[in-house]
């Protein structure tokens, strides 16, 4: 390690961990406010940026090893589009085959119903402890909190997810939930909650502490829960991709295995599964495949039970919305987050939403337009997210469309409304525009700093404004060409 890196690491281990967005009921999340606090924690911001960019580079390296990469992306996109066009058909096939294998299948309209069904199954089986592997749908439904309220102990078995559970914080990334924390931050959490040695921030020690403290729960739990990355209609199977082995432990050790999964996760056949498995981990972590790609087609022979809850929770509404339907193609790889300059430098928790980063900008307002009205503005519209998306979701275009829709629904913040109205008037009239531009350039040169970088000017808050040219292009053109009659030169 170089001297410089040692200094950086030292700063990181001594810096206080930045916390996420302030959540206040249904009030709009101020992503910018939280992002500013994240940026102030310079060492954390740097680590976060570096780690995610490293994942992006690893993804690129994997991509270059596969000559048919672009063909696979197109196939994945086509398969998802086809399945969504015939979603009812494939869900019915999945249900029929899963039931034939002995799986119990349930349908939940919303989060509340999903939680109620899961709780009822657990109570019917006298569940006191549930071991759970990572599931974004579970996060979306607030499932863990609902189950805990019933007096059932819930243990997250994924290391990152467990860290976040013990710290009373949401996961900050769909694949690496505690990516925003330093090892010292983790050590503090484990010292407080798992009786770990204070001050020992050795990463092997921390991981071992979690392994050893989780295992007794896994061995005694009455129920295990997983999400599902894919549902294969043809065979009625649930496919789960993990690295730690915790999904297989959660599903195979207790008698009862409950799966909660979004209805959009169904794919037609096994041959399609191959396409997605080839893309998923390469896009997410830059590894050829996850350590475990597990396939559950029915309950275990020795008295096992398997229950699958298919959850709608706004998905059928999104399906009917031509503008935003493509968001349902998402396979939750997180590649769009890893590449996004805003996400990398503001942290997943700044979005105050289950789904953060570019995909979060287009999914979140679908759940709540008011609360998440600021999110579609947390983007530079550079399109890198769409370029890396393994299922080719037009993320940046949807971000822009959301801005239009939110403006039409009266969901712009006060400052955006004032600025937009003023800009709208000026942009609509060429002469006004020219006068404004030439004045603005002149003004920018002489205005004191505090007037340009004030709170109403959201552009100035995040950016240094450009040097101003001596004259506008229009007046230069007029002087050199139009007046001298050189137009056709």
């Amino acid at each position, binding site marked *: 390690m170089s001297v410089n890196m040692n200094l950086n690491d030292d700063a990181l281990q001594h810096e206080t961990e930045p916390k996420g967005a302030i959540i206040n009921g249904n009030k709009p999340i101020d992503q910018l406010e939280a992002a500013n606090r994240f940026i102030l924690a310079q060492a954390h911001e740097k680590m976060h940026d570096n780690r995610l960019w490293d994942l992006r580079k690893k993804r690129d390296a994997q991509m270059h090893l596969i000559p048919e990469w672009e063909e696979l992306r197109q196939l994945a996109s086509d398969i998802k589009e086809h399945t969504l066009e015939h*979603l009812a058909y494939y869900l019915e096939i999945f249900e029929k085959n899963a039931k034939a294998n002995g799986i119990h299948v349930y349908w939940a309209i919303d989060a509340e119903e999903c939680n109620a069904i899961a709780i009822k199954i657990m109570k019917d089986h006298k569940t006191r402890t549930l071991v759970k592997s990572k599931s974004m749908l579970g996060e979306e439904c607030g499932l863990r909190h609902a189950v805990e309220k019933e007096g059932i102990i819930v243990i997250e078995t994924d290391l990152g997810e467990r860290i976040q559970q013990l710290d009373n914080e949401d996961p900050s990334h769909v694949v690496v939930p505690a990516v925003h924390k330093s*090892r010292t931050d983790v050590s503090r959490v484990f010292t407080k909650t798992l009786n770990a040695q204070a001050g020992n921030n050795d990463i092997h020690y921390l991981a071992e502490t979690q392994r050893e403290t989780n295992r007794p729960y896994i061995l005694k739990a009455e129920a295990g829960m997983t999400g599902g990355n894919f549902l294969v209609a043809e065979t009625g199977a649930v496919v789960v991709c993990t690295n730690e082995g915790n999904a297989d432990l959660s599903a195979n050790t207790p008698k009862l295995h409950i799966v909660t999964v979004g209805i959009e996760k169904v794919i037609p056949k096994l041959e399609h599964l191959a396409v997605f498995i080839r893309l998923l981990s390469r896009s997410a972590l830059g590894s050829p*495949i996850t350590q475990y790609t597990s396939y559950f087609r029915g309950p275990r022979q020795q008295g096992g039970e398997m229950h699958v809850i298919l959850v709608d929770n706004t998905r059928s509404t999104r399906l009917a919305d031509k503008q935003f339907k493509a968001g349902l193609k998402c396979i939750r790889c997180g590649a769009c987050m890893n590449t996004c300059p805003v996400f990398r430098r503001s942290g997943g928790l700044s979005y105050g939403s289950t789904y953060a980063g570019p995909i979060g900008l287009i999914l979140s307002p679908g759940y709540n337009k008011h609360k998440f009205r600021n999110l579609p503005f947390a983007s530079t519209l550079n399109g890198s997210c769409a370029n890396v998306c393994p299922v080719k979701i037009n993320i940046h275009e949807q971000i822009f469309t959301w801005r239009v829709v939110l403006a039409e629904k009266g969901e712009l913040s006060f400052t955006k409304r004032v600025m937009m109205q003023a800009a709208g008037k000026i942009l609509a009239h060429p002469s006004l525009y020219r006068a404004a531009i030439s004045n603005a350039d002149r003004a920018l040169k002489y205005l004191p700093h505090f007037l340009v970088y004030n709170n109403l000017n959201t552009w100035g808050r995040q950016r240094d404004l450009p040097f101003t040219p001596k004259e506008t292009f229009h007046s230069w053109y007029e002087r050199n060409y139009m007046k001298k009659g050189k137009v056709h030169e």
Partner: protein
Amino acid sequence: MSNRDLILNRIRHACTVEYVELSSVPFFHQKNLDILDKFKKVFTEMGGEWLDKDLKNPLKAVNDKLASAKNICSVVSEVKGNYEITSQSSPNSLHDIDFAVVRASFGVAETGSICLTEKDLVVNTLGYLPQHLIVLLDPKEIVENLHDAYARPEWKIYHYAALHSGPSATADIEGVLIRGAQGVRSLSLLLF
């Protein structure tokens, strides 16, 4: 109306495109690929430990690994263990096994994976609760890529099967890779 019908009706209402069969997915086979070589390379990259076959005593590498182990559960006839399980053994009782020895159904060169079915494992937790896993694999059962893998019959026969690609791992703290997360700490493989 039941939830099921309500959701399905909403979906049907949203879907208006006529059904056209999807064309089948190509196998993307590469020309002149040394499948065994590729398998070994990726298996090792994923953190697997490659056991070399001794010409005189093919299982020597396996037996060497087991020499000082306490609880050994072997479900393959070629290797003798000291910890018996049956398909009726309770899944959580396998937690004190140090080494499990199993035979994989097949391997995948593209991803260095091996496939373990419920039949290979006898009890599914045998793939995860022991500290270490040793796998025997017939070299004739290595397929080129995941397209070949999912065309295999196992997925339609068994209730449970998993592709293992190296041992359990995590990089959840500062991106530092740790082999031996919640599942096995090591995965060794002998072609036999």
